């Protein structure tokens, strides 16, 4: 069969992304009789939340990590097919996915598709953020978790948002020497806006308290209302300059101070991986508050394309608990959509899940409100700061193009080449959309994202030419 170039795998439900949402969906749908396939980009299931965790046996596990891992274990013997280390590089409207895995190529025909591709860390432009040694907190955590390698010997953790404290605490636990944690949100802002969040979730309050105690215990200064304004070095990063913010959220110039560092781990929150939705022709909506595009979806997690569902961080950043609920909903809805189950048999279960989801969405919103917005770093960045790392376009150049242009993202792209580099805009288009949304030209709600074109991920040219279809690398989890 593998020698037949026309051979293709056909499943009821194809799931792209083996994180909490994908795993939960596979289990729910398989239980209802659907033949499922999970396509996972990395080498193992669990998603980023598990990937950044230490595999050391005695390592502390948060509840969301444990639940995700338990779910992945349940996939054993569930009959769900799994292709790891594979990326979807193209999709056809005829419900065909093209995967590449190492040197093999797969063609998957599916009756329904769940896109659960999760999120990536938002870019955090500041002077010197392109220096080697400046990396995302997630990158640093994967270094320590997967290889026991520390990002550096004097590490500054800086940024904003709910993940920063957790990342700092987990890096310390992994043996990293953190010199300071620099959170842009001030204590007053956190106290006023965060109280509601904590009141709504005692779990979160306890968790945050535990992380803070870990930093205190390690003697790591927590500087709230501070930002990193510059990183410098001849080659890799050698120093960082931090400053407090004034009441107008501007760095106070005469209170800047510099410190020697050999790594800076940054976190500016998450943004969804939407490229597959774009390739599928799903309608995207710009969320002004979250400052990112998300696929339009309903409570059944259906997108604007009838056979495509969305679950997890791609529908709104809310963490693993929300993703687990959404995965289950999407799995059930796919089974309903394909007629594998009668509505009355799952109605009560679905109603409960939808209620749980609404609660998680409210919590996620209030967590967001506790912190300053993801555009804080953009607003204080020097015009010489790079907005596009691939094509080396500065924020100043981008802003000039936005001012001169007609307000459409595509116009700014043609003027500056932003988004045309090798990362295909994944590191810069968010910045462009934020600039446009804050500008005068174009109501952000009408904003059209820049189109994506296949290959969605790089594929060796030889493979594109061959297009050899093979099922030999498919493995059933057993």
């Amino acid at each position, binding site marked *: 069969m593998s020698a037949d170039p026309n051979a293709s795998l056909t499943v009821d439900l194809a799931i792209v992304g083996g994180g909490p949402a994908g795993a939960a969906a596979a289990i729910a749908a398989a239980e209802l009789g659907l033949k499922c396939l999970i396509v996972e980009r990395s080498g193992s299931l669990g998603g980023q939340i598990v990937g950044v965790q230490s595999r050391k046996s005695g390592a502390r596990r948060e509840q969301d990590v444990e639940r995700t891992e338990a779910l992945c274990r349940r996939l054993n013997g569930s009959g769900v097919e799994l292709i790891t280390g594979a990326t979807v590089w193209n999709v056809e409207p005829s419900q065909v996915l093209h995967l590449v895995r190492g040197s093999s190529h797969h063609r998957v025909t599916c009756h329904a598709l769940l896109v659960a591709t999760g999120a990536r860390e938002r870019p955090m432009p500041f002077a010197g953020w392109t220096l080697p040694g400046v990396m995302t907190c997630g990158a640093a955590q*994967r270094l320590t978790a997967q290889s026991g*390698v520390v990002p550096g010997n004097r590490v500054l953790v800086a940024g904003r948002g709910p993940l920063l404290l957790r990342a700092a605490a987990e890096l310390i636990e992994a043996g990293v020497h953190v010199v300071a944690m620099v959170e842009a949100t001030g204590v007053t802002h956190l106290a006023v806006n965060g109280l509601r969040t904590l009141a709504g979730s005692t779990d979160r309050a306890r968790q945050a308290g535990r992380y803070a105690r870990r930093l205190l215990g390690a003697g790591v200064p927590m500087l709230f209302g501070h930002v990193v304004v510059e990183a410098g070095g001849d080659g*890799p990063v050698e120093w960082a300059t931090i400053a407090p913010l004034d009441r107008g959220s501007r760095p106070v110039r005469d209170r800047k101070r510099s410190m020697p560092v050999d790594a800076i781990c940054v976190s500016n929150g998450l943004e969804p991986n939407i490229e597959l939705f774009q390739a599928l022709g799903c309608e995207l909506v710009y969320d002004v508050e979250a400052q990112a595009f998300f696929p339009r979806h309903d409570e059944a997690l259906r997108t604007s394309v009838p056979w495509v569902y969305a679950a997890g961080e791609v529908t709104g950043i809310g963490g693993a608990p929300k993703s687990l609920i959404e995965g289950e909903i999407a799995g059930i809805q796919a089974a309903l959509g394909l007629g594998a189950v009668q509505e009355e048999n799952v109605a009560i279960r679905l109603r409960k899940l939808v209620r749980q989801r609404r609660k998680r969405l409210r919590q996620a919103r209030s967590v967001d409100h506790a912190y300053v917005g993801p555009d804080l770093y953009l607003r204080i960045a020097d015009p010489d700061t790079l907005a596009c790392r691939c094509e080396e376009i500065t924020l100043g150049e981008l802003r000039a193009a936005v001012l001169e242009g007609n307000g459409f993202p595509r116009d700014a792209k043609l003027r500056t080449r932003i988004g045309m580099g090798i990362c295909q805009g994944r590191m810069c288009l968010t910045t462009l959309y934020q600039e446009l949304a804050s500008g005068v030209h174009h109501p952000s709600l009408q904003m059209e994202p820049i189109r994506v074109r296949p290959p969605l991920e790089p594929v060796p040219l030889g493979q594109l030419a061959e297009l050899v279809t093979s099922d030999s690398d498919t493995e059933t989890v057993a």
Partner: protein
Amino acid sequence: MNEARITTRRSSCDVDLHQWVDITVSGKTVRALRGEPLASALMAAGFVTMRHTLKTGAPRGMYCGMGICFECLVKLNGQGFVRACMAKVEPGLEVEMGEDER
């Protein structure tokens, strides 16, 4: 020389991959763990700068660590350019990258 760097950046106790293998990085032999991301092996050996940009020659290294940013592109013999954070260490791997190291 690389030994010292490995001990400074790597605390191998929490790694469940034990097999050490040799790879070559810009002509130097570097010890690495089989199956780990190439980027980790490079960082452990002190190769923080992984390339220089074509336009300005600015140094770059791993940023996102998850295959998104393409900053950690290095050349593998026979395979062309790969993302070091996505490539896995295999014995005898030959990596070519910018001369900058520390």
